[in-house]
């Protein structure tokens, strides 16, 4: 029973992890929490579901479209809002307000355009469970966990082993110096937004397949955000660990305490972390936190 719950927790945590890494990437670079991130995931899920149901595309193609589409929406946000605010030399706080505005806009746009109804992904994978001893694991959970692991390993490689990762690290430690050293900072910011957006797109599709697709789907990003705070804002590894932790905590609380307390305990955890260890598990910068 406990083992079963742990597996459920990890599978939910994996979806949070994809979103949380996006938060972490953008925070580490620009120092603000991109509230519109959840809505990027939501729009990605809609692109996926509409490509499959309305346009009758093959599933794999629809997923690719959703991932690329979500990435482009994320870049679009950066181009029309965040970049201009940075160029205006406005306070960092304005980035967050703009992100909040974008999030409100996208969520309500989805209600107007797609309607408030819940949409189901058509059955792609057979509904089945894999029996491992006394445990039964949903096939979808297993596949999504596999995707999450592959994506996270790929991301880790990208950050630690490639020129892209090095440039992003340089830019996040000091944007001015990085650009003096010949790094095209704006290009890398754009690429990071694309990367974060595509990760959000994957998580949106996975979440939509596990549950349903609806305009408020983006609110799930709040959990991912808490996960990235838990792991330490700006730390990608921390975000992954934090997301798994939140996923486990939620499943355990709803299984053993009360499902009505699930979100409450998550939020209380958020406040407690910020009070006692604002750097989270793996965060570094404590300059503007304490």
């Amino acid at each position, binding site marked *: 029973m406990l083992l079963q719950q742990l597996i459920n927790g990890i599978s939910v945590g994996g979806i949070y992890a994809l979103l949380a890494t996006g938060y972490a990437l953008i925070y580490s670079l620009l120092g603000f929490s991109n509230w519109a991130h959840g809505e990027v995931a939501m729009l990605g899920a809609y692109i996926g579901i509409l490509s499959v149901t309305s346009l009758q595309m093959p599933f794999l193609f629809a997923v690719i479209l959703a991932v690329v589409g979500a990435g482009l929406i994320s870049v679009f946000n950066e181009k029309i809002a965040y970049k*201009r605010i940075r160029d205006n030399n406005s306070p960092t706080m304005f980035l967050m307000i703009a992100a909040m505005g974008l999030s409100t806009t996208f969520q309500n746009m989805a209600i107007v355009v797609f309607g408030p109804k819940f949409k189901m992904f058509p059955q792609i994978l057979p509904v089945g469970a894999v029996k491992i001893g006394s445990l039964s694991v949903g096939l979808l959970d297993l596949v999504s966990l596999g995707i999450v692991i592959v994506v996270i390993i790929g991301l880790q490689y990208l950050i630690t082993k490639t020129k892209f990762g090095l440039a992003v690290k340089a830019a996040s430690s000091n944007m001015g110096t990085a650009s003096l050293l010949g790094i095209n900072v704006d290009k890398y910011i754009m690429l990071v937004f694309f990367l974060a957006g595509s990760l959000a797109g994957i998580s949106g599709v996975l979440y939509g397949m596990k549950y349903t697709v609806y305009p408020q789907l983006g609110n799930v990003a709040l959990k991912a955000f*808490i996960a990235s705070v838990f792991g330490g804002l700006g730390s990608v590894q921390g975000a992954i660990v934090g997301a798994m932790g939140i996923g486990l905590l939620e499943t355990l609380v709803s299984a053993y305490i009360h499902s009505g307390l699930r979100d409450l305990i998550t939020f209380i955890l958020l406040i407690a972390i910020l009070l006692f260890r*604002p750097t989270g598990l793996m965060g570094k910068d404590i300059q503007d936190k304490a």
Partner: protein
Amino acid sequence: MSGYVEGVIILVCINVIAVLGVSILTGFTRLFSFGNAGFMAIGAYASAILTTKYGAPFPVALVVGPIIAAIAALGLGKLTLKLKGDYFLITTLGFGESIRLLFLFAEPITGGARGLSGIPPKTTLFIAIGITVLAFLGAWNFLRSKYGRNLMAIREQEIAAEAVGIDTAKFKEYSFMISAAYAGMAGALLAHYYMFISPIMFNLPKSAELTITVVIGGLGSLSGSVLATILLTVLPEVFRSAAEYRMLLYGLAVVVIIVLKPSGLMGYREFSLRPIFKLYERIFKKNDPTQTKGDGK
């Protein structure tokens, strides 16, 4: 006056009170909060429970609601106001959602998701307008007192404010408490106007809406906040058929304003009739030769 118009005016008044609170906090102290709907919920539930379950008179409920909200802000502020920027905002967000979920969970006291009904309809047009005027004058005078100017000093440069001897922690705390008390008052009036409250009325979008209104009105203008509230409450009533576009347009408005004109409708200026008088005077003097010639100076 028809009941409908009266209802809209009462709604404007309630929103103005809540927005004034956010304006003091965000516009004048530059602390962003996503939890003011939580304080509204505290005020609404505290006052409604007092009048329905304990039979307390309405004025008592109107005083106790905001006080409890302010006490909650005192507690939260003591813990979180030392955090900066994003982090403070996140804790207020967590607080607002926690309050909502707590009221949702505490079913025996609050009625849970089904809400609390049977609240006496005590919020009349007269009371709503009276309290709004008092709230505005209170905020106006507070901001022009020594306390208010200290808040503005914190807004402009926190380190400099501290250097000239302002106890920034204490004044941020005041600002936060006043903002919570205003939210609590709005909540108490709301409960006794709708006669029914449920946790969903005080969710994150409600907090966001309050902040959006202040940003549109201008970060640093009380009358701008009032103007924006009236605009954002009355326009959706006029364009009822486009109701579903309401929040979409709010979101767009915030993005456009923060990108193109971050000072909002009014900026740091307050609404006054003086420019209108001046304009009138200029036109009047031009058209009336006796005025310009016969001034005799």
